[in-house]
């Protein structure tokens, strides 16, 4: 990679003049991926869209109900509430990822002893499977034998055991905390990689101009790593908006539907209540929400380029 960048990044993305080609060659190259995309992504998506117009058990019963599923989910307050819970969950988690991740990346972006060691430790949550993360914290937050309650009792911060995942008061916060713990390294790693590609000259120039460290960071460094931040922001938002595993294993969406984020609701509609049409309609709505979020991000973050 390094060797290549010295040669220079290709300016034109393609070339047709010097090399004569038959028109079919490019399709031979992108063919497999294209077929995979059409067969495995486009087709299921369209099929999901199709299902959303039916009342169906996916077997022998297919009643075409027009837009009834959509009307149902929007007239039903629970779905709107769940979208709201999901948005709240995603917003808190992503903002926390960015604050913690960027802060740690800046701290790690120094030449000091032991930095590599700390970097490896701080990246660990990213490497543990979601199932594992969920179960570790389920164990730590266990009301009777869990580490958390016992430590807090010992410190005198609480007087009786708290059901972290089973009480309305704490379940949402606990789930958010676990999601933050699991997800911040992705932001940290991306921002760190971007910071390391910022050339030293920029810092020098800022110093000569009399900018202090905080000014340099917000006015010069952040704008220069914006493309990476934007991409990371979109990916992180979509990933956590559609998140399922950790929350499902921690609380099953409960208590009540306090932590019932949208993926869990879709799962329950499908495989507990067998309302596949309704669940498919919810999925379509989720798709548009994700699309709108990413369009908004692009609108606000990319306009200067």
């Amino acid at each position: 990679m390094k060797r290549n960048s010295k040669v220079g990044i290709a300016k034109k993305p393609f070339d047709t003049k010097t090399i004569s080609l038959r028109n079919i060659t490019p399709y031979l190259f992108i063919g497999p991926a294209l077929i995979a995309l059409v067969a495995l992504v486009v087709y299921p998506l369209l099929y999901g869209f199709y299902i959303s117009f039916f009342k169906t058990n996916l077997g022998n019963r297919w009643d075409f109900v027009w837009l009834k599923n959509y009307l149902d989910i929007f007239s039903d307050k629970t779905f709107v509430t769940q979208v709201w819970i999901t948005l709240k969950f995603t917003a808190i988690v992503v903002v926390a990822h960015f604050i913690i991740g960027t802060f740690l990346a800046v701290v790690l972006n120094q030449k000091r002893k032991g930095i590599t060691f700390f970097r490896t430790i701080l990246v660990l949550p990213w490497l543990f499977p979601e199932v594992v993360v969920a179960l570790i914290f389920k164990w730590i937050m266990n009301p009777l034998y869990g580490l958390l309650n016992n430590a807090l009792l010992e410190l005198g911060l609480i007087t009786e055991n708290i059901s972290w995942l089973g009480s309305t008061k704490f379940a949402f916060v606990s789930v958010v905390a676990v999601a933050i713990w699991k997800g911040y390294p992705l932001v940290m790693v991306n921002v760190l990689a971007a910071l390391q590609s910022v050339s030293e000259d920029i810092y020098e120039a800022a110093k000569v101009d009399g900018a202090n460290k905080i000014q340099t960071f917000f006015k010069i460094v952040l704008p220069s790593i914006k493309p990476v931040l934007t991409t990371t922001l979109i990916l992180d938002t979509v990933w956590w908006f559609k998140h399922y595993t950790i929350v499902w294993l921690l609380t099953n969406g409960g208590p009540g539907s306090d932590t019932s984020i949208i993926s869990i609701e879709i799962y329950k509609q499908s495989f507990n209540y067998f309302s596949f049409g309704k669940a498919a309609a919810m999925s379509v709505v989720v798709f548009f929400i994700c699309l709108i979020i990413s369009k908004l991000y692009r609108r606000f973050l990319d306009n200067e380029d």
Partner: protein
Amino acid sequence: MKTNNTKTGMKRARVISGIGTYTVLVIASIVVLIPILWMLSTSLKIESETISIPPKWIPDNPSLEAYSRLWSEYPFLTYFKNSIIIVLSSVFLSVLFSCLAGYGVTRFNFKARKSFLSFLLVTQMFPSIMMLIPYYKVLSTYGINDSLLGMIIVYISFTVPFCSWMMVGFFRTIPLELDEAAIIDGCSRWKAFYKIILPMTLPGIASSAIYAFITGWNEYMFAQVLINSPELKTVPLGIAELNGFYKILWNDMMAASIIASLPLVILFIFLQKYFISGLTAGAVKQ
């Protein structure tokens, strides 16, 4: 800062910021390590000790029984075999497809080029939950629900778009002059691709392989819905199942968790730089 620019002042500032740096890093590391060390500690306990109050960090009778039970009393060997088959196949296929696509998109000008690229980008926004119900139905229509092949298909549907997107980023960094030179020297298109250009994208291949590996190795939701047969279950399913028993054996569960996490931690230690370069490769320029 400006007025106090003497050498001792700078030195003091550096020492102070050093203390700040290490304080932050140590606190953050403790927050990260406590759950991990607690998992390790629990996995080394015998059952009665896992539920002792107050909890003990260092077990009185450390034992590896929980680890050996994974292979003797639970079918984790089968779970691992299934996970490895599914993950390696999907890694291989998605790397193959995305290398071809990356080369095709960056080397040729053709009609569908632009729409293909923007489609790759849009697929990143698709919430995978959307595919759950369609796949549940489609795979059973074709008789490959509850099969390893079905899972491979599902996982490459996640990884092919993202890996292709990454590989396009990597192929872009390789100058077109190299292709031209190779072709002028008498190479065919395919030969120029796999003999000259492909070897130069090895870092990119490593990155997308790692991404595909992580995705497949960790995936839980689709496996939970699509796999019913006990002998086809994957590692995440197997671990989560330990959570479902009436009586949860925390030491066994934590031992399984450690074993399931090891492959990624080991991969990371040896291939660190590829973990990082891949995610940002596509970000540089769309």
